[in-house]
């Protein structure tokens, strides 16, 4: 049932969108520019993220210092960070009145447009690239480093014989993941991009829908978006995506004695780059936090409800799919990955087209956001829950079967107690992600149904920056608290 629901929503909305094409006479200049810009910014963002991640991850790998593990954990934080909060933070640092231009006395570049989009994408994806590459360094067996030492390798020899082959193996996958994330990025392009020079296809869908209400153009752009995602999906069949690597028998990292200063410069720069924008939100937002208008409070409440509902829906669908995968067939994994290829904007437009004749679009804004957010959470939730589910069945399935522990009893006394941890973690990620989502909701935007990220965007475009920073801090605190509650909740009394 869940599987057919996923297919119905993804394929159904797509068909609804395609039916709107009225005569196709080639792509216009605008569409070509959007395609070109999407590829260009994705390519540059992915390339810069990966290039910067090489020295940073190498430094993390080679050096040992107090706080290393905390910093590596923090590298995972951008995943639960609301995009709009990060963007406001980046504006406070790199904007025309940001601390960087104040320090230098002039502004080096404009944060709006191409530079800003790439900067924001690097901010989000540098940590991801660093973590994935760090796994890559860890995959070089330390026996090989020892062998190199006994052969008196120079640092250059080490690089050529051990590190370069690993990089060649790992980088294509990392690059492709980030490229994919950037092609479907919407909130960054919406807030920092825009204009003919910096419009992604996703943003063009939004503009065609919202400003021109040209459904035919929306349909054409949706197909383009789908083809691009499909192209990358096909590419990814040949390129191995980074998995969790098993290292050599010896898990001790070789701690470098040379290049210490350079390594610490890399780590410090990366840390400042990632932490400064958030610190600025904390500083600037705390003033505005208590002056927030009532509309912000209501939108915050709405966001919390949407996030909780989406998380509930995502968790139920994920558990159901995971049980199908474990008990029936691995084929069901496909349904979980279907939402990756679908874009939230295309889904949203499709739902709008299906329902707008019958229902006031404002009324389906929040339900659509719930359904689409839930679907977007399924791929990673499934990756967290399915392996744990399989382990559990391998260890206890036989005993549970022999005791006739089936149906609800099996869930209540076996699955739930043993999967609480992973379920809590994936629910925490889902709730934070839905909380910060600035995607489909802007399609239907209406002041009476706005969510907190939407409200922040509105304040920002109205140049009410102090209130925007205050609301951003509120959103940040809510997202982190909700993540923490779910993750912690799952680990209470959990058995390891």
């Amino acid at each position, binding site marked *: 049932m869940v599987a057919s629901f996923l297919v119905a929503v993804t394929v159904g909305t797509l068909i609804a969108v395609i039916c709107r094409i009225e005569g196709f006479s080639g792509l216009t200049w605008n569409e070509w520019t959007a395609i070109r810009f999407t590829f260009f910014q994705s390519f540059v963002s992915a390339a810069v993220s990966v290039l910067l991640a090489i020295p940073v991850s190498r430094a993390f790998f080679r050096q040992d210092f107090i706080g290393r593990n905390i910093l590596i954990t923090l590298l995972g934080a951008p995943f639960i960070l609301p995009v709009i909060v990060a963007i406001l933070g980046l504006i406070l640092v790199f904007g025309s009145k940001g601390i960087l231009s104040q320090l230098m006395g002039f502004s080096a570049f404009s944060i709006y447009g191409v530079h800003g989009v790439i900067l924001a994408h690097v901010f989000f994806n540098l940590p991801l690239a660093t973590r994935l590459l760090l796994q890559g360094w860890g995959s070089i067996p330390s026996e090989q480093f020892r062998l190199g030492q006994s052969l008196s390798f120079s640092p250059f020899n080490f690089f050529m014989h051990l590190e370069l082959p690993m990089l060649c193996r790992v980088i294509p996958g990392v690059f492709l993941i980030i490229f994919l994330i950037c092609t479907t990025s919407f909130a960054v392009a919406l807030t920092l991009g825009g204009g003919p020079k910096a419009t992604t296809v996703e943003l063009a869908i939004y503009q065609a829908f919202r400003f021109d209400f040209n459904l035919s153009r929306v349909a054409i752009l949706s197909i383009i978006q789908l083809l691009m995602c499909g192209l990358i999906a096909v590419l990814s069949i040949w390129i191995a995506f980074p998995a969790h690597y098993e290292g050599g028998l010896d898990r001790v990292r070789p701690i470098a004695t040379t290049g210490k200063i350079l390594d610490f410069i890399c780590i410090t720069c990366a840390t400042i780059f990632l932490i400064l924008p958030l610190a600025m939100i904390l500083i600037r937002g705390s003033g505005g936090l208590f002056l927030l208008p009532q509309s912000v409070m209501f939108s915050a409440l709405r966001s919390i409800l949407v996030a909780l509902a989406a998380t509930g829906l995502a968790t139920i669908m994920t558990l159901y799919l995971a049980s199908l995968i474990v008990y029936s067939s691995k084929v069901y994994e496909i349904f979980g990955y279907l939402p990756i290829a679908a874009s939230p904007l295309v889904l949203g437009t499709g739902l709008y087209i299906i329902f707008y004749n019958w229902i006031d679009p404002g009324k389906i804004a929040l339900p659509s956001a719930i359904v689409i957010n839930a679907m977007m959470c399924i791929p990673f939730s499934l990756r967290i829950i399915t392996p744990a589910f399989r382990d559990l069945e391998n260890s206890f399935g*036989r005993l549970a079967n022999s005791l*006739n*522990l089936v149906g609800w009893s099996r869930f209540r006394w076996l699955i739930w107690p043993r999967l609480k941890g992973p379920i809590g973690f994936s629910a925490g990620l889902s709730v934070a992600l839905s909380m910060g989502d600035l995607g489909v909701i802007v399609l239907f935007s209406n002041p009476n149904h706005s969510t907190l990220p939407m409200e922040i965007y509105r304040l920002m475009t109205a140049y009410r920056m102090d209130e925007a920073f205050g609301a951003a801090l509120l959103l940040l605190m809510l997202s982190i608290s909700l993540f923490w509650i779910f993750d912690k909740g799952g680990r209470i009394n959990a058995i390891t």
Partner: protein
Amino acid sequence: MLSLKSVEYSVGEFKLKADFEIPRLAKVALIGPSGAGKSTLFSLISGFLKPKSGSIFIDNEDVTTKLSNQRRVTTIFQDGNLFPHLTVKRNISLGLRPDLRLNSEQQGVLDYAIDRVGLTDLVDRKPGSLSGGQQSRVSLARALVRDCPLLLLDEPFSALGPSLKSDMIELVDQISNEKKLTVLFVTHDPEDAKKICDLSIIVSSGCVSSPMATKELFENPPEILRDYL
């Protein structure tokens, strides 16, 4: 009570053939080297594996096509008999009702079983904090509360010390007499077999012998058993 009629099973190179019958209330030892097929035989009886051909009867009922949870068999495995996240009491209660909603009569059965195996003071503990012997007692208590006439023991006491093991075998003997269970007991140790099993079956390289009187078997062992001993 239990009968296997021309049962054949194979996976890869390994083949198992079995054709035997066990009378009600018998206690039968299964003896044979590792890899001979003792655990496979148990999996066939308890329904975790399906035979390629032949049929299996328990209590005159053909169970060949039935799933493991529909067969009236209790298996105590070598390890992993208990859920580590549930208390001793709940682990035992699962044998009465998988949803753990016991009525007063079942509660009485539970209390008796807990008392019978001597776990009264440990009911609220989790298996992780019990000794190996105590864990075995929990499994036996669950076998005691279940309404299954056939008990399969797959070397459950092999990790215990000699005196503890002999206590456990003693307990199995008492419980199965009391509850009128038919017992199949895999063991490596002839002493275990001699202690409680009147009959023995030899499993060797995929062949399962018919049950023979244990005493005579060890007084005058056939060649296969001599090699093994």
